[in-house]
């Protein structure tokens, strides 16, 4: 689920005095709705800005045992790497200071600067050991794919702290909205964020061997869909057979590596209307074992998620709505 400061003022006490003046003098804003990722009148409520909001809107009515807070407000930060480090630290301190102590059902994803891997590692070392922090949240839109060698130490630091690395839809508007470059339409942007860019990230993480270097690394794909996965992996396995010498550290089928190291969340669910076809889509890859329920509150993605839950067996539903995430995030 999402949470976000209503405005930068909410973070003031967590920013050094210089950055308070920078925000003021530079006219820097913070947009709690992921930089305008959603159309202005879309039927999603305001992003919860306090524990009280979240309790009334979701935690109590849905009867949730555990919820993971994801604040993507820093995703569209400007390209000042020092400001990005200050902003992500402030968000983490805000999560630790104002959310985690107020409801024991809550866990949180920390955020890290995306322009400076050293600063990201330092931030993981600073707050990654907090018992309520279970994930390092990264935008799926990036300068270079996350599997790139320059990011390995960031990913390794997350694994060393027992944190899942979560790739979440969206990122800077200054990063291409598709794997092949920039677009002019919001339509392409929106479509790509929900399923296209993430395929480039999965391909990068597996191919670049980061799971060989960091065998304990666990990745979660958040708000990026999942029904695209079987076709990607089928072709990934096939092409790897012929050209494995280029990447000999990839010592098994890509589909096996993904099964060991990657999980996906249920929202949005791009699924057919016919329940039998939904079942077929799930069976292409035993998705009951790989999916973790996400409310994506307050965002609404239509009824695909309901169709998904309806198509699961009792045992699968128990896994998808609970056990898969408990195991992945060590929540039990």
């Amino acid at each position, binding site marked *: 689920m999402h949470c976000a400061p209503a405005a930068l003022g909410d973070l003031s006490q967590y920013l050094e005095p210089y950055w308070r003046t920078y925000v003021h003098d530079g006219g820097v804003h913070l947009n709690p709705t992921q930089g305008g990722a959603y159309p202005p009148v879309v039927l999603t409520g305001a992003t919860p800005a306090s524990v009280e909001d979240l309790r009334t809107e979701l935690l109590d009515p849905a009867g949730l045992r555990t919820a993971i807070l994801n604040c993507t407000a820093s995703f569209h930060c400007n390209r000042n790497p020092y400001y990005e480090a200050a902003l992500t630290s402030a968000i983490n301190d805000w999560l630790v200071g104002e959310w985690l102590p107020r409801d024991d059902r809550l866990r949180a994803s920390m955020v890290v600067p995306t322009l400076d891997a050293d600063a990201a590692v330092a931030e993981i070392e600073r707050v990654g050991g907090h018992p309520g922090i279970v994930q390092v949240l990264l935008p799926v839109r990036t300068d270079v794919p996350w599997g790139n*060698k320059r990011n*390995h130490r960031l990913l390794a630091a997350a694994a060393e702290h027992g944190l899942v690395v979560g790739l979440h839809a969206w990122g800077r508007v200054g990063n291409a909205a598709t794997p092949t470059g920039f677009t002019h339409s919001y339509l392409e942007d929106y479509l790509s964020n929900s399923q296209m860019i993430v395929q480039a990230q999965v391909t990068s993480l597996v191919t*670049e*061997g*980061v799971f*060989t*270097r960091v065998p304990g690394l666990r990745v979660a794909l958040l708000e990026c869909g999942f029904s695209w996965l079987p076709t990607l992996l089928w072709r990934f*396995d096939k092409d790897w*057979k*012929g*050209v494995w*010498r280029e*990447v*000999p*550290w990839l*010592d*098994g*089928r890509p589909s096996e590596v993904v099964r060991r190291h990657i999980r996906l969340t249920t929202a949005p669910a791009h699924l057919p209307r016919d329940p039998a076809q939904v079942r077929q889509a799930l069976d292409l890859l035993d998705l009951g074992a790989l999916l973790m329920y996400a409310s994506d509150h307050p965002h609404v993605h239509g009824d695909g998620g309901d169709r998904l839950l309806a198509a699961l067996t009792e045992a699968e539903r128990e896994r998808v709505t609970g056990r898969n995430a408990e195991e992945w995030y060590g929540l039990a």
Partner: protein
Amino acid sequence: MAKLDEFPTGERRIVQVGQRTIGVFRVGDRFYAMNNYCPHMGGPLCEGRTKPWLSSAAPGEFVLDEQEALVACPWHGWEYDLATGQSFLGPGEPPARAYEVTVERGTPERIAGGRNGRRPGPYVAETFPVHVEDSYVVVDTSSRPVAAGAAGGER
């Protein structure tokens, strides 16, 4: 299929045996033979490059064996162990057919194996063992047991 001293190490010969062709490889003092037919898509397997094993412990590390051990089909790069025909692309991938190679003294007639004046005909159907397993008829296309290449020092 050839005299030993006319078959230097590192070379290969592709010979016609009946209706099929078989590639014979010499790696050091060992010989290997394989059906020139890739079980993947039927490519001319034995025209591909031979390669050593390669391993890696981490991204950016490459450890190449000294000895050639595999042949890669020139169509799609699928690689097969020269000694066993085994591919290493995961369970369920069919092995290429490997043939045993021996070095024998004698004349070409003796090697051809003629008996009682009769010579083996050119048509040999490729056969595979069949057995019944859990009510399924199973055709076994795995390679026949073969020594890991025959020593070729004797003349």
